[in-house]
């Protein structure tokens, strides 16, 4: 009898075509006569928080060990095995998340959006490698970052590339950094995570696109060592700047350079600066004039960059989902779908927000992008200017030294130096 009633009720509802109304008690919960007890809804707990703390501890430990291996032990072998560990732990075990490279977006989002409760691990993963870099150079890049170490293991037959190309490509990370900050600050997207090329390998699972980008980078990396680190990584760009102020930094020779030139071609990242002799220096007045000229050019470049950036602000903003929605609604393009209403538009109608409200919201977002466009463009102009200026500065140096900015502290060059460290003759 009850079954019949239920069926009739159901049929009636179907015929009424009541659709997509959520959580309506159409059928009351039955009272069982057989004494059946209802099972509970199973809700598995999130990952234990202790593991988050463990991640931070492993980060600190790995950073300390790599730093010790690089600065004190000067052991390439040790750094290599730490790289393997990093790939295994931060890469395959933690599946590439959380990583320091992406954490800079969390920091930006938290700065611009005080309501966002940033995970403490994200703060730790952002700050700690920078602090270590500030004191010991980019040891994080050498053996802790899973993205870098994965490529490092693949760097089998490194070739050298032209200096000018290296310089030009070296600007890309800063542009990427600027874009990532712009998109995180406007809470639009985390582009570093979205275009992370290796996370697909770590998870054994990615779209074809991601696999091919990662694959191409790894294959290129066999010949041009660590292409992502040198020519894309935005966090690397930050560390590059910070590392220039580092207190201690890896040196090629343990004591004094004997000018044997054995290390000259040992660096796969072209991060060894050759000696600049006084003879080779330009005539001083000419150099000063050139330096001054470029310094005057910088503000002009910033202005040009800023103006260009602001002209593209609508293109930049179109990535934002709300802006896209407003565009699709205005032009009635329905996200290019012809057969049915796009899900986004269905959801917008169901949410009950009026079009005016949406347009107002979008106008505010676009305004943010206008300001952001100026800043981003200006920043890119500044980077161009500084790169130009850096080409004119010749620091006098006698020995082969690692470039503090671009050196990844991988300790490969150390093995090429024939000079033995001073043997400590202390009595045991």
């Amino acid at each position, binding site marked *: 009898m009850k079954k019949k009633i239920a069926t009739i009720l159901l049929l009636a509802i179907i015929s009424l075509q009541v659709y997509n109304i959520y959580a309506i008690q159409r059928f009351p919960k039955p009272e069982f006569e057989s004494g059946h007890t209802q099972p509970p809804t199973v809700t598995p707990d999130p990952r234990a928080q202790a593991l988050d703390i463990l991640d931070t501890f492993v980060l600190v430990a790995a950073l300390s060990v790599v730093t010790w291996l690089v600065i004190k032990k000067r052991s390439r072998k040790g750094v290599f095995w730490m790289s393997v560990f990093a790939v295994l732990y931060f890469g395959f075990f933690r599946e590439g998340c959380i990583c320091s490279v992406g954490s800079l977006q969390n*920091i930006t989002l*938290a*700065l611009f959006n*005080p*309501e966002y*409760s*940033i995970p*403490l691990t994200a*703060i730790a993963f952002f*700050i700690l490698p*920078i*602090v270590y870099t*500030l*004191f010991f150079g980019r040891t994080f890049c050498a053996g802790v970052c899973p993205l870098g170490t994965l490529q490092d293991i693949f760097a089998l037959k490194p070739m050298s590339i032209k200096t000018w190309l290296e310089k030009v490509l070296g600007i890309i990370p800063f542009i990427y950094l600027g874009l990532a900050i712009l998109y995180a600050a406007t809470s639009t997207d985390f582009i570093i995570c979205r275009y992370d090329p290796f996370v697909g390998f770590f998870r054994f699972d990615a779209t074809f696109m991601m696999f091919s980008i990662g694959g191409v980078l790894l294959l290129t990396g066999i010949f041009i060592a660590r292409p992502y680190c040198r020519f894309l990584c935005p966090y690397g760009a930050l560390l590059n700047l*910070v590392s*220039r*102020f*580092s*207190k201690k930094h890896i040196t090629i020779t343990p004591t004094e350079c004997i000018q044997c030139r054995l290390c000259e071609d040992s660096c796969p990242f072209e991060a060894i600066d050759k000696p600049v002799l006084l003879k080779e220096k330009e005539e001083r007045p000419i150099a000063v004039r050139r330096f001054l000229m470029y310094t005057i050019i910088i503000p002009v470049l910033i202005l040009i960059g800023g103006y260009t950036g602001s002209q593209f602000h609508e293109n930049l903003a179109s990535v934002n989902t709300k802006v896209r929605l407003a565009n699709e609604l205005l032009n009635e393009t329905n996200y290019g779908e012809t057969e049915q209403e796009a899900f986004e538009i269905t959801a917008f109608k169901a949410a009950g927000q009026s079009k005016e409200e949406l347009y107002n919201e979008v106008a505010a977002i676009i305004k943010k992008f206008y300001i952001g466009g100026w800043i981003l463009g200006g920043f890119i102009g500044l980077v161009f200017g500084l790169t130009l200026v850096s080409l004119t500065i010749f620091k006098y140096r006698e020995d082969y030294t690692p470039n503090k900015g671009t050196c990844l502290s991988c300790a490969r060059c150390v093995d090429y130096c024939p000079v033995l460290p001073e043997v400590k003759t202390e009595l045991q």
Partner: protein
Amino acid sequence: MNRRQFISSIGRGTIFTGLAALSGVLIYRKSKITEPCNFDFVCRDCRKLNSCKQPEAVIFKRNKNKKSA
């Protein structure tokens, strides 16, 4: 200590202070975020609403104020 080292140490100090300030601000802000609330349709009138900072709640409060005004 030569001039280059001096400049470098000033730079290092500045960056270090900056980082300390940044992490301080972030953690302080986080510790100030009040009790988390899930703003959904059943809790529109709950007492947490006033302190609720979820984006939907902020919009809801704004609209509510508009209507009452």
